[in-house]
């Protein structure tokens, strides 16, 4: 009964900032797609609550802090079904929530951002890694906690160059996002002095990802596909569509390591990350969600923690005040990555170290030592201010 009453009262207070003694309710919406994508590896199959589970943990963390400050955080989730209008769903969420964490494809995110602009809702892009959302299509009401393709590619590129594996055989899938990732990898090779000795395309001819006698066929296909390559150090695969990359390790014609979409993979987070106090966070996540934490979970956690960080620093639940603080020069957030995370003020992308993982261990963390920058070494990952085409509006 009391809780039922507190909700609406809290909302009024959040708007009016009346009595400091009463708890302020801060509403956070989570907007994702219904259903999950299919992966080649059964163990990497995302859970139904991929992403929102991270937001849920951050709400708990924020509430632990909030009880000392008279702030209460509430999460409202909505999954967009096939054929449902994302703008309508987002508008409904924005009724009760000043902040929305979105895990949506780029086009849907842009539609939502434009529809909510006049309302003052602050959006967090926790899912889309598309460069254009931070470049030509950037928006002043969208903060990006997901890394970009170029950040991921640069993180991998720096490590491969540090390792002196500078001759890459690039294998690219036939879908659009595979080609975009290949673009980012080519850019990384050019920036850090690696050489792409040859490119091959792996055509998606359709077919099931799960079969009862799959391995036998794959074991014959992959060596043939990778034979007669010029001398190379590492095979770099661009396969965001999950068509072939996971089949490559241990099956290449030449005995070479695989990186990119399989083998050594760049990610914002991994269940194996245990440095910089991350173990506590991983334990909290497992306790709450009965599974391990993914990169999408972390990107959503970070978004909700950014909101909590700003509400505690400003001692306010007012969306405008909180938004201004997050976009301001003094904002920083800790996210178990060994360094403070800040926003690139020219496109609202969160600067962050990128982990290089092999599915079991964190192999390394980029930026690598020796890649220098005049402002922040984190800006050696991805498009930098002078290259940016973003004009925030």
């Amino acid at each position: 009964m009391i809780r039922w009453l507190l909700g609406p009262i809290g909302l009024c207070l959040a708007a009016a900032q009346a009595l400091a003694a009463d708890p302020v309710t801060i509403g956070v919406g989570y907007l994702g797609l219904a259903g999950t994508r299919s992966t080649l590896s059964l163990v990497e199959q995302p859970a139904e609550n991929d992403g929102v589970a991270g937001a849920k943990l951050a709400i708990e963390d924020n509430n632990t802090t909030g009880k000392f400050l008279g702030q209460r955080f509430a999460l409202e989730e909505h999954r967009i079904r096939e054929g449902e209008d994302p703008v309508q769903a987002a508008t409904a969420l924005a009724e009760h929530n000043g902040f929305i964490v979105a895990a949506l494809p780029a086009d849907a995110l842009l539609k939502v951002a434009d529809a909510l602009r006049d309302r003052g809702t602050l959006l967090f892009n926790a899912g889309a890694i598309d460069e254009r959302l931070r470049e030509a299509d950037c928006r002043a009401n969208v903060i990006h906690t997901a890394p970009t393709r170029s950040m991921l590619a640069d993180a991998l590129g720096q490590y491969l160059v540090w390792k002196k594996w500078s001759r890459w055989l690039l294998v690219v899938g036939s879908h659009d996002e595979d080609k975009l990732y290949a673009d980012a990898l080519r850019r990384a090779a050019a920036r850090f002095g690696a050489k792409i000795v040859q490119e091959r395309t792996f055509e998606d001819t359709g077919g099931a990802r799960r079969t009862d006698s799959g391995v036998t066929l794959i074991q014959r296909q992959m060596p043939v596909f990778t034979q007669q390559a010029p001398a190379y150090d590492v095979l770099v695969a661009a396969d965001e569509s999950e068509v072939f990359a996971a089949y490559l390790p241990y099956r290449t014609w030449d005995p070479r390591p695989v990186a990119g979409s399989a083998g050594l993979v760049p990610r914002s987070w991994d269940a194996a990350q245990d440095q910089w106090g991350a173990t506590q966070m991983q334990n909290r996540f497992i306790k709450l969600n009965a599974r391990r934490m993914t990169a999408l979970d972390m990107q959503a956690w970070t978004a909700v923690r950014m909101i909590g960080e700003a509400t505690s620093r400003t001692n306010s639940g007012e969306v405008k005040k909180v938004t201004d603080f997050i976009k301001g020069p003094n904002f920083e957030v800790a996210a178990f990555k060994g360094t403070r995370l800040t926003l690139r003020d020219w496109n609202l992308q969160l600067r962050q170290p990128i982990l290089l993982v092999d599915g079991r261990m964190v192999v390394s963390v980029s930026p690598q030592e020796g890649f220098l920058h005049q402002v922040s070494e984190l800006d050696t990952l991805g498009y930098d201010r002078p290259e940016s085409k973003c004009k925030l509006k």
Partner: protein
Amino acid sequence: MLRAGLLSGLVLAAAPAHGFIAYVSNEKSNTVSVIDTDGWTVTKTIKVGQRPRGIEFTRDGKFVMVAVGDDDSIQLIDARTQAVVDTLPSGPDPELFTQDAAGKTLYVANENDNTVTVIDLEKRARLGDIQVGVEPEGMTVSPDGKTLINTSETTNMAHFIDTASRQIVANVLVDARPRFACYKHDASELWVSSEIGGTVSIVDPGKHEVIGKVTFEIPGLRKEAIQPVGIGMTKDDKTAFVALGPANRVAVVDTATHKVTKYLLVGQRVWHMAFTPDEKYLLTTNGVSNDVSVIDVAAQKVIKTIQVGELPWGITMAPGIAP
């Protein structure tokens, strides 16, 4: 000058009655290294539980308590036999702890469940828990024993807890990831280091307000590399030493102005520190270079490096001279 410092160290070494004993927890090796300052050598390596971090002598100097986080307990090392003799019932994943002036009550930060556990040291029994913020870490008791301070790393607060009622009486927001708290001996200020924020907040313990901040700037080093953790305050409260983590330096801070007067280059990823009881030397644990740096406090110079186990983390000094 450096040679002079070394010479005085040698003179000290020649007089064995002046030797002190330091215990260093090695997070990765699951060991504790015993250092004799008489000659600056490791005299013994003690096997302990998994992931030893927080380490402190009991007030009577008879035992060393070491938090072994991955075993969810605190082990007691007998200082005479230098062997583990008992285990205290801490909560899950203990990292840092502190004791009251009498050495009767122990307060343990349990990172995994947002609590501080209270332990009766005489009975070696758990008395209760106090709910605090997310990931409690830094712990200290005010000089008058009335207030317990706990910092929580993700909540970014210093919690002021009344030791009699075990209730939180105030929460002070500090910069990101507060890791260590330390009172001035005269109780006029509480210093809290923020690892990710890169600052030390100076808190007025009466008003529960941040009244100043120590900031750090090292030419040629990015701001992100400066991550303050351990703090050491001289008994006259005039000088503070702050370990700066991956900046590989200890800052010397004038406590009157709250300004850094000097940066001392130590080993890599410097975590915590302890003074010798005569306050002539300050020993720091350097996590990545697996060693301990010895600082001559008066000269403000690093005079020696001692190799210890893997990833040295905490350090404590025996209250008296070596037996």
